[in-house]
């Protein structure tokens, strides 16, 4: 994703807020629309949401910082999520997390140094019958073995 300057971030945020498909528009629905459109919540968006919803910047930051799905830095091209709910934990989620973190050179959630991949934990991806579950760019991969995870990581690195 190309980096946008402050003005275009402002314009895109305003666009996303106005175009949101939610019949009842709130601070949260506006933030979710921006997250969907831009992949993150830049400072400019916070101000735009405050302006549109007639809320204070404080109020908007309060909501944005509460929900863990919001990012405050530009997105990386790839996201890998490992589910750590009890079902997945029992059948090897910790091994998968360790393996992924090792391969990505990370200690916990975050972006790789080269800005290519984001690693996230998810408390439940919702496919517990196929535990352990990982999601690569929001696509679920059930019954994921460590070997399969390595393959997926290689595919991400090769850009496929």
């Amino acid at each position, binding site marked *: 994703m190309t980096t946008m300057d402050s003005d275009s971030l402002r314009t895109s945020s305003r666009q996303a807020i106005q175009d949101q498909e*939610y*019949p*009842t528009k*709130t*601070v*949260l*629905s506006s*933030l*979710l629309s921006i*997250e969907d459109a831009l992949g993150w919540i830049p*400072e400019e968006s916070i101000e735009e949401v405050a*302006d549109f*919803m007639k809320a*204070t*910047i*404080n109020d908007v*930051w*309060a*909501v944005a*910082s*509460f*929900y*863990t*799905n919001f*990012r*405050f*830095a530009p997105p990386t091209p790839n996201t890998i999520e490992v*589910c*750590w*709910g*009890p*079902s*997945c*934990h*029992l*059948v090897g989620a*910790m*091994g998968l997390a*360790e393996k992924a*973190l090792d391969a990505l050179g990370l*200690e*916990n*959630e*975050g972006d790789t140094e080269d800005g290519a991949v984001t690693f996230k*934990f998810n*408390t*439940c*991806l*919702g*496919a*517990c*019958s*196929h*535990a352990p*579950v990982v999601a690569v760019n*929001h696509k*679920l*991969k*059930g*019954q994921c073995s460590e070997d399969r995870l390595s393959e997926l990581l290689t595919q991400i690195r090769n850009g496929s």
Partner: protein
Amino acid sequence: MTVRFEELKKAADESWVGLHGQQAWIRVGSAICGEAAGSEEVIEALQGEVAKRGIKATVSIVGCLGPCYAEPLVDIITPGGSRVFYNNVTPELVPQIIEAHIANGQPDSQLAFAYEGDTAVEEVSPLYDLPMMKGQVRIAMRNAGNIDPFDINQYIANGGYAGLDRALTSMTPEEVLQEVKDSGLRGRGGAAFPTGVKWGFLVGSKSPVKYILCNCEEGDPGAFNDKGILESDPHTLIEGTIIAGYTTGASNGIVFIRHGHEGPIVKTQQAIKQAYEAGLLGKNILGTDFNFDIEVSLTGDSYVAGEETALMESIEGKRAMPRFRPPFPAAYGVWGKPSNINNIKTLAYVPEIVSKGGEWFSSIGYERSKGTAIICLSGHIQRPGMIEVPMGITINQVLYDIGGGPTPGHSLRMLQTGGPLGGVLSADKASTTLDYESMAAAGAILGSGGIIVADERTCAVNMARVLAAFCQFESCGKCFPCRLGTGHLVEVLERISRSESRPGDLELMKSVGTSMAASSLCGHGQLGYNPIQSALSYFEEDFRSHIVDGKCPTGQCSEPIIAPQRTRPHRWSAPAQGRAPLPAGRLALR
């Protein structure tokens, strides 16, 4: 425009007959379980194969039939033939299946999993003779896996909206309420409060705007039945919600789903749109003077948003933190208007209760727990999946007869039921019957219906630590006993699991847990100590092994402890997280 139900029904029946007419109909299980197993690739392969051979066939998606372990599950019905199911289909198997079943007209008995219909398939079992399907009573899941969730006609052709038609045209709201009371239906979200009584509260609140809130936040790891219903049969929820609206005099419905769960969101939005087009929502529903609107509201990632008052805060676009009660939702709910909150599963029963009567529903089930339980099996079990069984059968029957027992070569040790706050049970408690009272007496809850099975490789300290870490991560932070207490509990459990405990650690946890229970606003803090307490009561020997002998009884605790960083402010500002620091003007009031 007013539409009579008979016209809708006639058109729907014709379309259903059409699907069984001249050409093959292929259905692919594409709920979240199918998706995780790779259904998307299978659908592509099927469409490609059918096109390549020039075969006329309809390929549709359906929801979750229940045996998730068999996904991707494909079924084919040819004109005049039986419906034949194929399990664990890969794109590579597709040409073989199409060749045999459609090109040669002979179902592939080697690959087939089951059949349903009058024509038997050699060496293949009838669907409802499969151990996983036998013994199930499917009410809320009656259409799951059978109909295309995107097609309202398929729902209507299978009896859908008949309950709504009956309620609107031949019953008064009081009569519908009485049916629901007679049915003995209780809330399936966890608290098990009688639904009819709850609706009665809303009836008593006078206001031109009243809300029916449908809760599909479903953050419980191990439970996926709410999402499963919305992905398989969203119209059953829409119909149940409209009936709830008619009964209580409400004007609006809101379906509350977590952002990011695309399947349930898209299917519900589509269902609402179709219901409006068919005159089942909006003004003068089915030609009566009843008006009702439904919309979808999304929340961000937050477990506590599933708590009824936090849910209302989230709908209003605020932080999902619980409110003080009273005032209760029936008096002062979302946007300050009277509101009623029901779980998706609860509302999904309503159409059938109205169609077939409360007495019919109350004939199923056990003592004070009427109807069925929708259970999600996961963990160390042979046949994980989503099933619907009558209340009153034992956990053992569910685990062994339906789920096939623990993973081969292993033995049952522990059960985690009803969501992360529900606590754990020992294997000998698997003789408990599935009903609210017996589960409570055993020290667990039926809750959202998740049963996570753990075998002898599992250490109770490890399980308690993971559950506590979940509670800690998801604490909303409003009440400090929960915010600080959950963190304290995780700290102590991590010490114990590394066999570095200090004297008095168990007493310390108990005292923290007692404070949390006494002084937290919602169930999250009140029940936050529950997983640890239940692990201690059933598996004290595991804790003793860690504390006294300095070793893990199963070796499981030797794995590294990795979990999301625990407190949100820390995640928020850490530069290593790739997050920008707070802007300088953050405190400025506009």
